[in-house]
């Protein structure tokens, strides 16, 4: 295999109501085994996917939000969150789950996986990708 490609998974939709968020996560988990350069982006209603305190009991749907917190164990450590999307929905960084990873190149120090960027920075990051999968 040639050198790793840059894969970006763009999450644009709320976690429940449609299956896109869950099936996006399923691709991310499988794709993590391929040793590619993986990033996730959360824009628009996609920012709700990583919101704190999700409770799906009354929906009768599985709450899969804990899986995002396990992404670090799969080597998926770059989760870009668009600041404007948060602000437009009345959310702040404190409304999101703390998602961290252990940096194996830095004595397994715990570091945040969430990277907060503005719209222009998000666009620039997207333009640098080889593969963009949008859900």
């Amino acid at each position, binding site marked *: *295999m040639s050198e790793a*490609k840059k*894969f970006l998974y763009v999450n644009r939709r709320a976690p429940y109501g449609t*299956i*896109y968020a869950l*099936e996006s996560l*399923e*691709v991310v988990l*499988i*794709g993590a*085994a*391929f040793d*590619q350069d993986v990033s996730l982006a959360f824009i628009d209603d996609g920012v709700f996917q990583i919101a704190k305190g999700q409770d799906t009991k009354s929906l009768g749907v599985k709450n899969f939000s804990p899986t995002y917190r396990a992404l670090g164990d799969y080597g998926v450590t770059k989760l870009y969150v668009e600041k404007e999307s948060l602000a437009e929905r009345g959310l702040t960084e404190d409304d999101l789950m703390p998602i961290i990873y252990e940096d194996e190149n830095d004595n397994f120090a715990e570091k945040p996986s969430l990277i907060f960027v503005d719209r222009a920075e998000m666009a620039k990051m997207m333009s640098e990708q*080889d*593969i*963009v*999968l*949008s*859900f």
Partner: protein
Amino acid sequence: MKLSILVNEGPYTHQAADSAYQFTKAALEKGNEIFRVFFYNDGVNNGTRLTVPPQDDRNIQKNWSELAEQYKLDLVVCIAAAQRRGILDEGEAKRHGKGEGAANIAPGFRISGLGQLIEAGIEADRLVVFGD
């Protein structure tokens, strides 16, 4: 150019399914190589042989099956997405006790894992995504 195609929406509900087919056909006719077409989300519904559209309408599944035969295309339906939507091949139908004749995967399609999508992205020059 070597292309891979990802189809994320179902037939008749969403233009993406038609656009994916038209794009794939046009790309092949222009001499491009299609490494793989991968069906995910409701896109897996493009691969059921039980589709019966009205006679005066296009038959999306049949179009794909014929294109696959003509160009030896690799049409892959995601197994996880397919199972929760009731798309089965012989092996899966048997394994889940769905009875004789339950397999509904259309000719030219095969069921496999999500790794095939990642590989399609790695191996092709471009991965073209059709979705909402």
